[in-house]
């Protein structure tokens, strides 16, 4: 019966409605990125790993502090990309690394350690910025293919197989920056542990920041010499 019903057409309104509908579909399909997501990981346990949009004022302030420290001082932001300069030892290996969104800013609240509490810390946690894909362009070369970002924190290859990935189920994409975030005497303190491919000892390789001219291929990313001979010796204490 339904299929046999005549379709009532209002000749004046339909083109406008159709145009609006088409516009809405177009906008939703290619209207660009969703805004950045701010999420708090409430549980990081095997069975109940869970993250929700951040609503708590303190947690939002922690993520704001992380974002303010990480984004403007390391990345050049475009609509749906974050670009970093990679100043390597040689010009040939230096270049730009670009990350695509949607971007997730995750907060993992932690416990305040006794030592920190004695120094006025009232809140402590870790914050992570996750991106979807990454590509690299060395000076004078072409952009590589977009590839999924690989996790360095949540793969847990040293755990038994049943416990390897489930924690990741509450997280989207993979981390491109992370930092310790503490509230000490009413001030937020953010200590970056890694940004892009670099850990703390090499963060200087991200500066100076990427420029539009470099993105357009009109300028090269300068090389940079860092003495990192002891860079990794103290960071890997396990295994």
């Amino acid at each position, binding site marked *: 019966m339904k299929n046999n019903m005549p379709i009532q057409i209002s000749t004046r309104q339909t083109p406008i409605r159709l145009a609006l509908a088409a516009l809405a579909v177009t906008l939703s399909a290619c209207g660009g990125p969703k805004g950045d997501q701010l999420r708090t990981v409430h549980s990081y346990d095997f069975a109940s790993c869970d993250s929700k949009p951040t609503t708590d004022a303190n947690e939002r302030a922690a993520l704001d502090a992380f974002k303010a420290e990480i984004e403007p001082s390391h990345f050049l932001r475009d609509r749906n990309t974050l670009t970093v300069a990679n100043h*390597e030892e040689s010009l040939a290996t230096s270049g730009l690394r670009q990350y695509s969104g949607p971007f997730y800013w995750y907060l993992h609240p932690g416990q305040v350690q006794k030592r920190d509490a004695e120094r006025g810390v009232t809140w402590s946690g870790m914050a992570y910025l996750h991106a979807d894909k990454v590509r690299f362009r060395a000076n004078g070369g072409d952009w*590589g293919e977009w590839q999924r970002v690989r996790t*360095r924190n*949540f*793969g*847990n290859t040293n755990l038994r197989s049943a416990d390897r990935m489930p924690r990741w189920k509450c997280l989207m994409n993979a981390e*491109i920056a992370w930092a310790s975030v503490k509230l000490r005497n009413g001030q937020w303190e953010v200590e970056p542990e890694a940004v892009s491919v670099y850990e703390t000892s090499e963060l200087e390789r991200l500066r100076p920041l990427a420029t539009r001219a470099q993105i357009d291929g009109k300028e090269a990313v300068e090389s940079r010499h860092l003495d990192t001979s002891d860079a990794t010796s103290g960071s890997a*204490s*396990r295994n």
Partner: protein
Amino acid sequence: MNHVFRYVTLILCACGLLAGCGHKKLTEESVRNFVDAADEAFTKGKVTAICESRSDDFVLTVTEFALAENRIVADYAEAQRVAAEREAAHELVKGKTQTVKLKELCALAYQSRAQFRRTRLQRGPLQIAIDPDGKRAVVRTHYTTWEPEDVRGDSPLSYHDSVEHQIATKQTESDDESIVILDPHGDLRFAATTSVSKWFRVPSQRDSRL
């Protein structure tokens, strides 16, 4: 109808048997394509393809030399200098030889598939020598591979977790010789590979997925 179907089936089977019984011959192009596909299967960590490209009685023999252990060198030339200095000081740079059969190779490939995907491979020119009957080929080439060497450090999230830290890139220079054959179905397979590898560590090369 049934008779027709039977005849068609018989003819198809006969064609298949003939193809498998040696009417198909190896060519330089087919061997090159086969090696290309095998290299791609390795860098993409495709374990099934890695195993299927080898015969049931496949044997891999690897002799491995560590040129400059416990240090990071700039490149192959420096690694060779270090090895030469060690030999001059009467320190033996001894190779370790291992023999791996198909089953073990497949198990190793499965365990290492994620690492294969992070490995960059560069192949030198292929030298292909095909037997006159076209059933067997010897393929020689030089490979250079770069793979990340990581350690896992403590994570601030929990004692269950850990953070990956890359400490170096392992570069391996290998001279490989493989025997390629046609299997009974007329498909190409590696029957054996002998590899002489020299490895050393170079400064960390950045992971393209970070």
